[in-house]
């Protein structure tokens, strides 16, 4: 295989690596304070990255170690766009007095996790997949502990890295069992060797647990609330959407591609985990007062909904998964954008009571927050309704009607807690609401993009149709 073919197949990875290096050098070269310039540079480069890779590339490299499909190309672009939105809304936090001197680290670390996710989604073998997974996890721990002098942030980082190590170890164990029983690590060759022996089932469960940790599925979710609460809000946003989106896509493609013969086994596994995840996350979420902790449980339950698409196990399921991730990214980032803005103007308070009467003083932010919560709750005509509809439909087609029914019941609970925030903003009286403030330009641009996404992604049916056409290729 000649080098130019590798270049064209791995174009996205290579250009992202170049961006990473540029950011590293820029941080070294530019004189302090360089936070404004770095932000502009990072956002600009990501826009270039999206533009370069907007056309899907397909192909293999390194003898099937690296496989790029149209769908994985699209997922990479979506993840990049999500990262761009996170960079935009991190504005008010990273440019603060106490963190601006390390702004460069933020961009470099985040971009390296993104690179790791790129490898995760287009791995053709468990080896590359594992490398990608670790590249996506370890810098994240640094990011979680970014405000290292703040106790909660340090604690969150510790919890995250310890749990990540634990899950990685178990996953490696599972991968070794796979290698032992199949004699190969390549997804394409594995299928012939998989017969569903007890050892292989154990291996599959261990592999699933490793990704279940990233997706924070119950019972591998325990780190989530503590880490989400302690981490800087923008990092929480990143963790909750980008990291999850990549893991969900990788999980589904590996289960379908590599573990195809064991579909009976893993669909039962996912059915159980989905129901438990959604239910437990919901009943825990209703009692939360800290918004970041609350969003942690919300993101756990959203991950459960994403799993419904995995149950579909066909092209339609894949399309609905990617669509769900896209819609989830815009809605969740809108919520986090509002939370982070409010946090900066409110001495770091993120409890729900702080939002009482928020509508009176900040009608625009409340409006965006409301629509985003509606979308997360799945209220038509916002995009969240359609994305939920499609994942339900794909699980239903695969015959998992009981799971779909239980998930539907759970949406009612989730509506309740999403509406609690809306109620706080609009209805609960408060003599002393937060003062009126104006968010920074970047954050506003990010929120407007999210808002457009929430409203338009559902109404414009082309988005889903394009995805399902790509998935059926």
């Amino acid at each position, binding site marked *: 295989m000649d080098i130019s073919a590798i270049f064209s197949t791995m174009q996205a990875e290579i250009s992202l690596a170049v961006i990473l290096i540029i950011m590293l050098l820029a941080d070294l070269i530019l004189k302090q304070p360089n936070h404004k310039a770095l932000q502009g540079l990072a956002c600009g480069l990501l826009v270039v990255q999206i533009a370069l890779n907007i056309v899907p590339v397909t192909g293999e490299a390194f003898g099937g170690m690296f496989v790029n499909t149209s769908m994985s190309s699209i997922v990479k672009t979506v993840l990049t766009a999500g990262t761009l939105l996170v960079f935009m809304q991190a504005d008010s936090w990273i440019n603060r007095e106490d963190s601006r001197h390390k702004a460069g680290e933020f961009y470099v670390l985040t971009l390296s996790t993104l690179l790791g996710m790129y490898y995760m989604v287009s791995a053709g073998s468990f080896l590359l997949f594992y490398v990608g997974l670790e590249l996506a996890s370890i810098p994240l721990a640094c990011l979680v502990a970014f405000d290292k002098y703040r106790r909660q942030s340090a604690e969150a980082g510790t919890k995250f890295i310890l749990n990540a190590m*634990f899950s990685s170890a178990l996953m490696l164990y599972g991968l070794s069992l796979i290698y032992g029983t199949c004699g190969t690590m390549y997804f394409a060759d594995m299928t012939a060797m998989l017969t569903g022996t007890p050892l292989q089932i154990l291996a599959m*469960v261990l592999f699933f647990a490793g990704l279940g940790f990233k997706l924070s599925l119950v019972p591998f979710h325990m780190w989530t609330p503590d880490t989400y609460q302690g981490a800087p809000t923008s990092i929480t946003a990143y963790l909750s959407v980008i990291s999850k989106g990549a893991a969900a896509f990788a999980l589904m493609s590996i289960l379908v591609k590599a573990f195809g013969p064991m579909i009976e086994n893993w669909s*039962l596994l996912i059915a159980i985990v989905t129901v438990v995840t959604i239910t437990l996350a919901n009943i825990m979420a209703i009692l939360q007062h800290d918004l970041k902790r609350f969003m942690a449980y919300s993101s756990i339950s959203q991950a459960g909904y994403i799993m419904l698409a995995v149950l579909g196990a066909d092209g339609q399921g894949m399309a609905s998964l990617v669509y769900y991730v896209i819609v989830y990214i815009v809605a969740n980032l809108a919520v986090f954008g509002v939370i982070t803005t409010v946090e900066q103007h409110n001495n770091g308070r993120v409890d729900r009571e702080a939002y009482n009467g928020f509508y009176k003083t900040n009608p625009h932010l409340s409006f965006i927050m409301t629509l985003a919560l509606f979308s997360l709750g799945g209220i038509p005509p916002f995009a969240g309704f359609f994305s939920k509809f499609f994942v339900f439909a794909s699980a239903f087609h695969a015959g998992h009607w009981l799971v779909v029914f239980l998930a539907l019941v759970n949406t009612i609970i989730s509506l309740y807690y999403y509406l609690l925030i809306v109620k706080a903003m609009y209805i609960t009286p408060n003599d002393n609401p937060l003062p009126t403030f104006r968010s920074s330009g970047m954050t506003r641009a990010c929120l407007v993009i999210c808002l457009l996404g929430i409203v338009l992604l559902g109404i414009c049916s082309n988005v889903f149709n394009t995805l399902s056409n790509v998935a059926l290729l």
Partner: protein
Amino acid sequence: MEYTILILALPVLSFLILGLAGMYMKHRVAGLIGTLSLTGVTFLSYLTAYEYFTAPRTAEGVFETLMPWNFQWLPFNTSLHIDMGILLDPISVMMLVVISTVSLMVHIYSFGYMKGEVGFQRYYAFLSLFSFSMLGLVLATNIFQMYVFWELVGVSSYLLIGFYYTKPEAIAASKKAFIVTRFADLGFLIGILIYGFYMGTFTFTPEQEQLMKCGMLLPLALGLMFIGGAGKSAMFPLHIWLPDAMEGPTPVSALIHAATMVVAGVYLVARMFPLFIGYAPETLHLVAYVGAFTAFYAASVACAQSDIKRVLAFSTISQIGFMMVALGVCTTADPHEGGLGYMAGMFHLFTHAMFKALLFLGAGCIIHAVHSNEMSTMGGLRKYMPITHITFLIACLAIAGIPPFSGFFSKDEILTACFQFSPVMGWIMTIIAGMTAFYMFRLYYGIFWGTENKELHKHHTPHESPLSMTFPLMVLAAITIVCGWILPFGHFISANGHAYDIHLNTQVAVTSIVVALIAIALATWMYARDKQPVADMLAKRFATLHRAAYKRFYMDEIWLFVTHKIIFRCISTPLAWFDRHVIDQFMNFMAWSTNASGEAAQPIQNGKIQSYTMWFLGGIIVLSIILLLN
């Protein structure tokens, strides 16, 4: 003809601008934005009509059906999908002309009529929204798109009827209109669902095998759709909302409740006409009977009303009945003659829109002058308001069916079609046409001649309206005078698409003119003079009948009885009890148990990393065991 998309884009744009930024604008600017966008729409509509009707016909001698835009919105499978697009065929192009003309006239007229009103910008925003919805309705490429815009039209009608939202009557009327039409639309929706489910498509022109799949259910689906049309077009017994809808501003009544929205039901039947005539002729004739009864009922009520807008409302109901009859009497017996009613119904829709808008706008001028809707405050207005008087008279002559005004030609075609269907129907409709002439001239004399309320007029002298209001009157009057004999309507629209030369049936024409003249003479004898002994004597002699007609034959009371006494008491109350005591309690229990389990689950999350990994490992073990045992 891709530019037709602008016909929809312009009004929606002006709605957004006026709706979002209207409150920061001066009245004049807001009105100008609305009017300019409608001027653009009108220009484009005329251009479309010109290009469409001058384009060469196809080999079969019909105008080609065009779809310059069609966008697949929600696909279900390869044949069943909801599209959004623009359909151009003779009737939709004709409707474009009608809607844009009347809407433009109303936009201009409202400058004068609504001058200084609070919420002037909001009014224009709603007018734009209505124009957009109505144009979208007629341009719909499939039945579902039509339904979407159908509901939008209903919403904008609701908003405009309730424009004076501080007036309790207006609020009640808007709610009534919305609920009654929505109730009827339920039938429409079920009809659409049956149509889509069994046929596997939402298009207006299904394939032969798709029709075969629907089979016996097609007449049912079409009948249910007609219920929706009957609601919107105020057919008996769903007509009760229209008279109350007159609480809205008068130009709105002219636009929505006389010329455009209320004929949506007629348009719907015309749109589905090939299916009606081919597969459900019985349903089509049912439409005719409903239309005929409605026409008669409304005409008799109109004879006894004293509020001028109510008279016009009932006359609208009656005239829409005429259109329904025209469509309903079509048969396949003789393709050319049997389809005459289709052309006649569409023709009447066209002419009626013009002269009825003229009547309503004239009524608006009168109300503007005397600040009341009641006929008792009027009388003798002809010397104060010459332009209104003449134009109103022209419209009255048109609706009464006197040549050479437009109404004569279209009504004559309808009557001819009726006589072809059955002589009984022909005579009934001729008599109703006579009643129309009678009550319209009763109205005319009551306003412009008759007993003048001198005391009131001395106190406040009525005056002619400003040019912005009289100009639309003159334009519409001009159209009413000429469009009957100048427009070769049959060349554009006919049941089978071929050019059709309108020729008057001498016998029918003479009969109807004679009947109309007798009715006008009767009205003149009874109402033109200062004192009206005959009318008073008749009202006293047939007091019960007069009172019943004045009360619209108690239809509202009957509906109230059915809803309040029967539905509310016998069905709703027990259901409410069940809801409150069984379902709510169950839901409360669910909510309580959810909360309680949340409380119970909290301790798991204890913050200790050791226990987290225990859960992690325990989870793996349990899941593995389940999978292994399975």
